[in-house]
């Protein structure tokens, strides 16, 4: 039940992004996760305790 109630807002967010920025569903899923702060990309850096290090927003600059 908890999974379902969590999944619905995520699906709504994906649909909203698909419409708002005119992208595909797979792009919208990725963008939703980035915008939601869940992920920074597909490369994950861990601290010494195995926790994900979330870079600050300025790390998104093009190197």
């Amino acid at each position: 039940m908890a999974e379902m109630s969590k999944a619905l807002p995520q699906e709504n967010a994906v649909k909203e992004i698909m419409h708002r920025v005119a992208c595909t569903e797979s792009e919208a899923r990725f963008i939703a996760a980035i915008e939601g702060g869940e992920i920074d990309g597909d490369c994950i850096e861990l601290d010494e305790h195995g926790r994900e290090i979330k870079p600050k927003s300025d790390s998104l600059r093009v190197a």
Partner: protein
Amino acid sequence: MPASDMGRDKTWQPAGTPVSSILRIEATGKVARVAKESLDVIDQVHGVGLSAHVAIPIVEGGSFSRPGVFEYYKGGRPVHIELSSRSSTPHIDFTHEVGHFLDHQVIGHPGEYASRAGNAVLSGWREAVEATEAVQRLSDLSEMSRFRVSGPGGGFRYVPVDRMYVRYLLRPQELFARSYAQLVAMESQNADFLTEMAILRATRGGLIKYPAQWRNDDFMAIRESLLRAIMEMKWRK
């Protein structure tokens, strides 16, 4: 030998350690099958010379929003590659993560992305990537706030560009991983890889095209530069 001949005349062979020997499949089911099939293809395209001395597991993980993951500790030590069984383009997604692993652990100094660190062996690749139409379009999009797309009734509408997503696509390590996966698809001509690449490159009306992958003609200079780097690193002989 011109780099353009390196992929076609088959006078070369993969050299050194097979990529499959530095990645250990610990997943089961679909993920294990995809990883095995992909590694068989990669092993036919290149080895990793004599310098590789790491081995990491491949596990089931990721998610619908992030089908593949490469994980490592802050100090640089690699942890594993994850692949989701729900990926719609699993061979490309997996090979993309292998690209991250090679970039981070095998090319240049272990623990830093050679693509981002300015490693000399990738200087030709860097120039080639920056000159492509796809990357120029992404660079243009990164400066735009809105983009005109066709509307459902035949007119047009303006939609905001997701510049955070575009900047992510322009990260050097992401450009490298996407280049690498496309190179493996093109060199192997494997049916699964080519089908998935077609899915990723499909264009649809009414949407902004974020060109993550390259058209074949736009990719040729990248291909040549990567094949030169592969020869230089003695991943082929």
